[in-house]
């Protein structure tokens, strides 16, 4: 239930080291732009509440100020990265398929750029101490639709080519990957999780997995590429197989 220290990071979308340095300015720019609304907010807070006679109001409202500051950073970071993402997507439309893992391949290059753009807001959401407006909120801006009443806050979900239905349980420390790197090949497939599905703790969904309605995946197992988990059935193992009943 309670996330350990070492896993409070961003989602596992590795950025290619060959271009990481090239787009560092973009990454730092997003961080600075997302902190501008915070500084405006703090400045107005201090101006409004700080006076020599009534400084106690300033301190009593400080917890609410912290709460507001965290969400202002998160919202501004997501909005700015969504705006930049729209410009990037105009240059190259993201699509599924099998690609080469070289920088000459435009699909692979632009996948890396998209990850650089999304990194800051995903990191801020992952390290948010409060349970409201977490994964579901941020991923909605990036086009991942997660239904109502889902438990998805202690897991890693890829920020594109994923759709998750309503009333789904996603376990602690489980990972939903819509990309795969196999030596020189790079694979991008859509993952669909139906309504009422259950994914146990420490599971891995590999690209192309389809989980139909009410299908269950037991803890500590992973699916293979393009696997289909049928309705109302239980799967487990490495890779997942239908459980004999």
């Amino acid at each position: 239930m309670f996330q350990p220290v070492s896993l409070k990071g961003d989602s596992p979308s590795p950025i290619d080291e060959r271009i990481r340095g090239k787009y560092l300015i973009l990454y730092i720019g997003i961080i600075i732009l997302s902190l501008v609304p915070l500084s405006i907010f703090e400045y107005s807070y201090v101006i409004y509440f700080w006076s020599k006679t009534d400084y106690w109001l300033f301190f009593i409202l400080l917890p609410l100020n912290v709460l507001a500051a965290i969400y202002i950073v998160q919202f501004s970071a997501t909005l700015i990265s969504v705006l930049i993402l729209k410009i990037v997507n105009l240059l190259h439309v993201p699509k599924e398929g099998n690609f080469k893992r070289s920088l000459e391949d435009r699909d692979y290059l632009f996948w890396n750029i998209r990850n650089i753009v999304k990194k800051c807001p995903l990191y801020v959401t992952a390290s948010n101490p409060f349970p409201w407006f977490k994964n579901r909120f941020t991923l909605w801006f990036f086009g991942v639709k997660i239904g109502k009443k889902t438990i998805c806050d202690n897991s890693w979900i890829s920020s594109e080519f994923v759709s998750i239905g309503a009333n789904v349980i996603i376990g602690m420390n489980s990972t939903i990957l819509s990309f795969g790197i196999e030596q020189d090949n790079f694979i991008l497939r859509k993952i669909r999780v139906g309504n009422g599905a259950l994914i146990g703790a420490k599971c891995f969904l590999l690209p192309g997995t389809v989980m139909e309605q009410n299908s269950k995946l037991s803890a500590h197992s992973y699916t293979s590429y393009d696997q289909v988990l049928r309705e109302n059935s239980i799967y487990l193992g490495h890779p997942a197989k239908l459980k004999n009943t």
Partner: protein
Amino acid sequence: MERDNYSKFEMDFISTSGVYKTPFSLIIIVQLFVGGIVLFLVNLWFINGLYYLLTGSDFYSFGLKAEWYYWLLLPLNIYGNILLFTFTIILFSAGIFKLLNKLSPPREGIFERGSKDWKYMHRRFWVAYFPIWLARALPLPWIDIVVYRFFGTRVGKSVVLYEGYVDPLFIEIGDFTMTSLNICIFSHLIYQDKILIKKVKIGKACVVGPHTIVSPGTIMQDFAVLGVNSYTSIEQELEGNLIHIGTPVSLTLPIQSVEESKNKAEKVKLEPSNAEANQNEIDLNLKEE
């Protein structure tokens, strides 16, 4: 370590621990307020009191008018404030936790969605959520064990417990036990329509290996070792002085010293397929002597 036979649960598969979002989760804002107000009052008293002690006059503003020793003591003040903030929140939420336990005593079993136990389970977890987050955010590694003790978990002395997903209720951990990176110790499993709660007992000087899941109802006897990347099924009993491996645990191996394992490896070498080569080596060694 005995258990009743009639209390056997029969679930099809292992899911995960977790809670749904309920309106009760807004208690985090109350906790934040309580922590903040105590922090403010103590600071006000402390700064004024120290200033009065050293100069004999009242301190009336927080501006840059303070003396040099105030700035010298500022780092200690900041760190003390952080500790004060977390400990007030921990004490406050431990109080609420005990109140909830009195209103509806925690029970083991399978409960339907919407029942009283389901509701109180969720309330207990939302109370424990923020203090444990704070304790894990602090740079002191022992502090989350202190928090778990406040919430009624029995944790022995010198236990390593800070790198895993651990539930706050129905867990007993003995002295000198070591838990590794990225483990899950679950005392409850959540399914869409029901919840399963069962006590976990981990004995003295056990080792829980990395990337493992300890499911509810597991009993680890003293000196048992749970191997890497394995998980236990519900209500499994792990015998002491043995290594347990498997998904779910099915294989047991003896714990050996280095000398014993070396001796065994040499015996394997002397099997008939390699016997001739070994014989030649022994002959050569004899000639040299």
